[in-house]
């Protein structure tokens, strides 16, 4: 048990957000940078995006090919497991549906893999049906390296660690397997509305 600190309120946790703030979250105005390692800086000429693993034919795009794919503008709320949320963030990206079009697979799960060695696992279902994108712009500007540029996964309905920065591809898997934070104790699914932060939640 701890003692209360007279007069300490902490960051506001009760802003008027008409039910848009998941439990335990507070609103931020800025866009905090989260970092668990060095920021990779892969030249666009060397960048590729691949679909690998349980697929009949792996796919791969160069940056130019990737940027030639149809893209869309997405406005969503995002929720970080470190407890900040940000409303109405605007992104531009390629829908994962577009990337998976024509891919034959028996997989139910996906491991997103990234420059710098980061990984995160998701059910394939959560990446399809207009729920996930590979985003290359934020607020009308090319995505900055500290926010995951040149491209990051955007899966706004799950905690933001699932929206892997510096993403380079999706490995399709038959069985679920933990990524980086999931290995070290974070939740395999990570639904902010059910407060699935840690593996036991």
């Amino acid at each position: 048990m701890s003692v209360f600190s007279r007069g300490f309120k902490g960051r506001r946790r009760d802003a008027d957000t008409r039910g848009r703030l998941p439990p335990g979250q507070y609103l931020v105005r800025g866009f905090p940078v989260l970092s668990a390692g060095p920021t990779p800086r892969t030249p666009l000429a060397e960048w590729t995006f691949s679909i690998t693993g349980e697929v009949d034919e792996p796919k791969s795009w160069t940056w130019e090919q990737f940027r030639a794919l149809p893209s869309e503008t997405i406005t969503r709320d995002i929720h970080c497991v470190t407890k900040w949320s940000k409303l109405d963030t605007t992104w531009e990206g390629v829908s994962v549906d577009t990337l998976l079009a024509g891919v034959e697979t028996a997989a139910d799960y996906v491991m997103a893999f990234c420059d710098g060695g980061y990984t995160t696992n998701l059910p394939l279902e959560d990446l399809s049906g207009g729920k996930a994108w590979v985003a290359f712009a934020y607020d009308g500007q090319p995505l900055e390296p500290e926010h995951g540029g040149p491209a990051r996964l955007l899966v706004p309905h799950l905690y933001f660690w699932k929206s892997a920065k510096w993403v380079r591809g999706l490995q399709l898997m038959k069985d679920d397997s933990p990524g980086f934070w999931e290995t070290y104790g974070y939740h395999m699914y990570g639904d902010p509305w059910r407060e699935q932060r840690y593996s036991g939640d």
Partner: protein
Amino acid sequence: MDETQLRLDGNAAAGLLQEVFVHELTSARGACASCGAVAEVGAQHLYMYPQSPGAVLRCSACASVLLVLVQGGGHLRLALPGFMWLEFREAGAQAG
């Protein structure tokens, strides 16, 4: 702002590590299993809550993950994926 502005020194994790270890860990020496570099834990690069979902200690020579500590949900999970060894100084060998 990039990660070089967010990172700390391993020393900043000392409070967290003392929840787990009986020895003072930040003055222990450790060898990186990836590149072999030897340094005190306190001198490695650290990324820590709230700027990172958990404490991640990385080799300051090659950036490999040496240690991860995640605290939450009533558990504290410690992983040591990158140390070849850790060496602690024994307290003075008083007769006794």
